[in-house]
């Protein structure tokens, strides 16, 4: 359930959507340098990404992998991803693909990468029904609805022990 953690809110809590802090590339490099850095990276990568191949980097660009810790389209870095849990542009998904599907990456993405039909962790644990009934029981108790509370308590008792 934590994995579903409501991106906007977690992002907001981290100030990502604060418009005053918006342009990450400007935070990463001093403003007066960012243009140059961007230009440099773009030149280095020219021809590697411009064909827009689905496979992304890696194969064609063996002498360059170190540079690819930054996304040429948006200047986003792997550190940014690790820190914020967010990506800068669609291109980032190609560039940081190995990170995203690694065990350190998001578990959801890993699951889906191997099996697009797999369910995300959306309370699919065997405890889900128990948890749901316990919450309903709590509400019934709060409302002094003891008849319903008794019914729910009995239902919970019938669930298989985990």
């Amino acid at each position, binding site marked *: 359930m934590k994995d579903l953690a*409501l*991106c906007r809110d977690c992002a907001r809590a981290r100030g990502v959507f604060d418009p005053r802090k918006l342009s990450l590339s400007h935070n990463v490099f001093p403003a007066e340098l960012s243009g140059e850095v961007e230009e440099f990276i773009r030149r280095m990568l020219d021809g590697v990404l411009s064909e827009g191949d689905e496979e992304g980097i890696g194969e064609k660009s063996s002498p360059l992998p170190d540079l690819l810790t930054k996304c040429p389209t948006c200047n986003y870095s792997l550190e940014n991803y690790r820190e914020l849990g967010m*990506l800068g542009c*669609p291109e980032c998904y190609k560039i940081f693909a190995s990170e995203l599907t690694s065990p350190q990456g998001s578990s*959801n993405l890993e699951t889906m990468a191997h099996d697009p039909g797999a*369910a995300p962790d959306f309370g699919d644990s065997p405890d889900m029904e128990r948890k749901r009934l316990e919450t309903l029981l709590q509400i019934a108790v709060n409302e002094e609805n003891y008849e319903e509370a008794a019914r729910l308590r009995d239902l919970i008792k019938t669930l298989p022990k985990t």
Partner: protein
Amino acid sequence: MKKGDFQRLAVNPPAYANYFGQPRVLLGTLGIVELNINGFPFPGWSTVEKSRQVAHIILPVLNKLKGVNWSFQSEMSELDSIQRRFLLERMQITYAMAARNEACHVLINDKQDMEAYVNDEEELLILRFFPGEEDSISRAEDTCRKLRDELTELLPVARHPKFGYLSACPEKTGSGLWYSFLLHTPAMQILNGNRQLQTELEQLVPMDPQPLFPRGNGAHAGLYWLHTYTISFGKAARRTMEKLHIAVNDIIALERRARTRLLMEPKKRQKFLALLEKMLVKTERGEVKTFNASLEALSALQLGHELGLLRARRSKASTTKLFSAAYFDIAPTSLALKQKLLSPRRRHEARIDYLRKLVHEKLELQPTFRQQKS
């Protein structure tokens, strides 16, 4: 770039508001399509120049969508602070959007049941409201999936063979669709209290319940948007939706039962009757001033009427309509825009006046039960 008259928006409530006065628990479902464009940074990291380019790609496509008549369209920079707050209060822009200016656009259709944001938290967000308790969820699913597919054909949409539709947060990649539910749970609120209710809802649903009116954490009359995302595709998205159905149905069942108990159980009923009497007296004496207190009064009186504990001078349909309108008419920026009431004190006065007229003149709400001496 600006199209349409803001004042026209101000006098007509958004579509979902028309359903506030309904006895339903699930007032409707908001279906949302969120897409990004290939080759550009996500809006959070973009430059104004790149966001402009994105807008130039998206806006012509939006304006050509079949069957959609955008009657209001504006760049955020063209809206002043009251207009922004007004749209925010009506849930017609997001907080992020309210803070933006150049290259960010908001479009609203003629019926005000559909909005599009360009360069909000995603490059394109389309929101559409589907009223009703019975089938609003499935209608939202169908319509939004079709709209997403249509846009995918018309725009260079960012998709990945493994992750599906891409967004800035990797946990949100997948179907490009998500859903929110507008719920009215006044009886649960009366039985449980606001904070307790919110805590329980959070437990029950793997979602994020938010008070409808973004007005801090005070009372909100049991009006909630439940927000969620679908985060994957294929079978997983279906299963996610199944879970949402269960969660929403749980809440509907809880609220219906709470309403029955307020009516049928002597002690609860007594408590509710006392609350209704108090609300009638307070609205008459002008003691309900703030927006939140007014929402709570409206919500309780509406429920009392639905449960037959209060009778109105008008037909059921006309009463429902008046209640629906009231939730919006008393909102701060609604009063500020429509009546040019710019100080809180003058808005309090206007609200007192509005509630007194509504409850005691237009509706003439009267208890159907014998008056209790306390």
